[in-house]
């Protein structure tokens, strides 16, 4: 019976690369773009138990180590997407203006094929965000794309929790269809949006006070635990990162003002397509910005977006990341980073950082990932050519030393999957109804002690 279960498990992750390397792994003689310490030629990287343990020349690995020949190839840290909605069974909780109680964690789908396709584009980690339908949206999840693993393995345990905020057109819902009998949800203006957020933090402060009083035994009755306000208290306490969707520069400033008033920091402005207009103010606030490389013009508030956004922000000292917000675009963030060299002359390593180390910083996971450094997680991509070249593709994507995408194996697997399909299509339950029931024979119980006789 164990065999059956094992077989079934193998079957269930047929697309994935099931090699489980928790031992040693050695990448030899590659061009290593570290994203933190320059580009190193002809270098080896030794990985042990999921961590990078050595970077150098002529490194030795144990006999059973997995070896990757990196000759002529490029190695980068795994790409990190600071704005994704991959593997989510729900995106928006539309109902209220404040839905901080909603948690992406509750609706993760580890079987979403877009995970694998992102891996095939060199992405190893992502910030999975609630949608932007609410001034204060739901709680995010920061994950690594451990395709084929159980969902709990995806979550980066020590990533600080976060929450989605949003400003502008989506929040106002000014053009959404109102069903008969429904009233328009407040807020319908940018004025109202600001007040919703202020009101929520006023309530969160009072809520915290109520608990403090109770804990100090000033009150007798325990306050009601409020799942809406708890995450906002965490924001006030600096324990939860705010990722704030917005487009127009004025609304970014509005939020930064609120944050200042309530004493918290905004971790990232998401999209921030007009952030370049207020780069000095953003730099001063210490807030990061996570943007599209050059996607623009799809709505009014995206009309002033320019591809030089990243360059201006970078020159002002802002930590910038390039995100996808899309299951399609996430597959080619390396090209988006490359564009940043062209639009405004961002240096190569800085451009690489925008899809690796910078998003890691913004998500508070840069201690463990985002660059190729000894002691960090072995979240690594091996590219066929320079990752900024349009002619390059990822050959191997690994997370913590475990290979989750291997182009050669993917190609080799295609025939096998076709054969599996053919076999499955012949199974009784998969026959079209008109062909079913013709070959069915009562089969004797295979278990010797089964049956009632």
């Amino acid at each position, binding site marked *: 019976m164990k065999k059956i279960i094992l077989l079934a498990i193998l079957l269930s992750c047929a697309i994935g690369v099931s090699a489980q390397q928790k031992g040693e792994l050695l990448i030899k003689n590659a061009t290593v773009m570290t994203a933190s310490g320059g580009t190193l030629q002809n270098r080896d990287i030794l990985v042990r138990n999921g961590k990078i343990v050595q970077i150098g020349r002529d490194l030795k690995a144990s006999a059973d180590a997995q070896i990757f020949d990196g000759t002529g190839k490029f190695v980068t840290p795994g790409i990190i997407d600071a704005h994704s909605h991959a593997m989510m069974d729900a995106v928006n909780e539309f109902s209220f203006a404040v839905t901080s109680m909603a948690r992406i964690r509750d609706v993760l789908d580890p079987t979403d*094929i877009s995970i694998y396709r992102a891996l095939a584009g060199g992405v190893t980690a992502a910030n999975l965000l609630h949608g932007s339908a609410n001034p204060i949206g739901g709680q995010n999840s920061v994950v690594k794309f451990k395709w084929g693993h159980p969902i709990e393995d995806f979550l980066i345990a020590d990533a600080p929790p976060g929450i989605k905020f949003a400003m502008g057109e*989506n929040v106002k819902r000014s053009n959404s269809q109102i069903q008969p009998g429904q009233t328009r949800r407040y807020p319908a203006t940018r004025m109202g949006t600001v007040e919703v957020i202020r009101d929520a933090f006023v309530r969160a402060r009072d809520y915290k006070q109520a608990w403090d009083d109770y804990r100090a035994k000033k009150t007798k009755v325990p306050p009601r635990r409020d799942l809406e306000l708890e995450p906002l208290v965490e924001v006030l306490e600096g324990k939860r990162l705010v990722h704030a969707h917005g487009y127009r520069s004025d609304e970014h400033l509005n939020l930064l003002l609120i944050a200042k008033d309530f004493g918290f920091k905004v971790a990232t402005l998401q999209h921030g397509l007009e952030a370049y207009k207020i780069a*000095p103010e953003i730099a001063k606030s210490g807030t990061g910005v996570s943007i599209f490389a050059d996607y623009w013009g799809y709505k*009014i508030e995206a009309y002033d977006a320019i591809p030089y956004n990243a360059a201006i922000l970078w020159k002002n000292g802002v930590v910038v990341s390039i995100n996808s917000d899309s299951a399609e675009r996430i597959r080619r963030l390396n090209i988006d980073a490359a564009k940043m060299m062209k639009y405004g002359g961002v240096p190569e390593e800085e451009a690489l950082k925008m899809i690796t180390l910078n998003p890691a910083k913004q998500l508070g996971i840069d201690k463990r990932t985002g660059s190729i450094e000894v002691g960090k997680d072995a979240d690594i991509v091996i590219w066929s050519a320079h990752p900024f070249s349009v002619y390059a593709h990822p050959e191997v994507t690994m997370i913590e030393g475990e290979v989750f995408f291997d182009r050669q194996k993917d190609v080799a697997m295609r025939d096998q999957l076709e054969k599996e399909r053919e076999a499955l299509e012949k199974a009784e339950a998969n026959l079209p109804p008109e062909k079913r029931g013709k070959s069915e024979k009562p089969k004797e119980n295979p278990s010797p002690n089964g049956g009632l006789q």
Partner: protein
Amino acid sequence: MIKKILNNLCLSLFICGSLFISAFAQNGGTQQNLTGRDGAFAITNARIVTVSGDTIENGTIIIRNGKIEAVGANIRAGGGVETIDGKGLTVYPGMIDAATNMGLIEIGGGAAGTVDVAETGNMNSNAKAITGINPNTSHINVTRVNGTTTVLSLPVSGLVSGQSAIINLNGATQSEMAVVPVFGLIVNFPRVTTFEFAPGVGRRAIEYSQAVKQRDKNVEDLKKIFDEAALYAKTREAYAADKSLPHKDIDLKMEAMIPYLKGEKPVIFTADRERDIRGALKFADELKLKAIILGGAEAWKAADDLKKYNVPVIYTNMWSMPLGQDADYDSMYAGPGKMKAAGVKFAIASGDDGANARDLPYQAGMSAAYGLSKEDALKAVTIYPAEILGISDKMGSIETGKVANIVVTDGDLLDARTNIKYLFINGRLLPLTSRHTELYEAFKNRK
């Protein structure tokens, strides 16, 4: 492209929340379309990628009166010619994007007043893109400064969407821009649609046999349009030959169909799935239409029919998601390589509404990371589309006598890191400015 528009809608509706309608803001007050200056130019000491012939490692190209006057390794620039030192630079023919909605849509979400891409109704053969194109759209400059000099701009919607236009990305008026003002008839070949969106239910499957029935009915409707047009053409001709016959009133929609019925101009069928491509090819063959397939996600699977009928494909799916969760992750990237291997004639196009059509070179380049040769990737956005659009005598390569649509770069044209240094359209040297560079200049030094 409808798909891109839908993607945008999806992005704003489902991911982000909602749309915002407003009729304001078209150009934001900046001058978008500086039409450059005419003159005689010589680019010397440059690497010249002619596309049609060998690459000249160190050569000269002379541009005069809008044309390429001379090109070669040993050309001497005569007097009265402005010389550009091309040392370290590479000269390419301008890229041709064979599928865009350039000029027909400024802002897809929340600004309906700027959207002229989708006429109402099923049958709009008389609608001409050239009449809806805004020569001052900000998209034109944004696109051309990345090296695309000519595009096909096309309407969407309905069964027969209208007629596309081939335009150069320069000119103060439609006629200044027009290369072929009325080029191909856009027909959205009826698809087998195996799902629908039902109110309160969401996406749900349609039984395949049912979907085929609906498709067949739609194809019948389309056939009827062509049959009626044929009859109309016949009666018009008869009347022209014999005025004693009763007068036949002119019908603009029917009138517009005539050159397509006669095979004088191409009918561009949008079709992505193999079954739909084969269906369109059969349809075109039966009616003796000159067909082009637009979309072509699974065109490589229908290679036999495409070759049999000698029909080319304008491939707009480089950056589309694979069809279905079991499709190979690289199936869309690999499409051009597979078409090439199968001997299908094709071009790579952005399929973009215009704002992001500037990504065309990178889309083409990626096809070379997944099976196509780099040379073919470049051809797929230069000479191949020129051939498919019937303008290869004028464009698509660097040859003496061709229109001087020229791009001078500091690197590989298809590489995302490459900068464009000089840009010529119709021999006019254009400033490398756009809405984006203007905003950049305005804000880059703000303290």
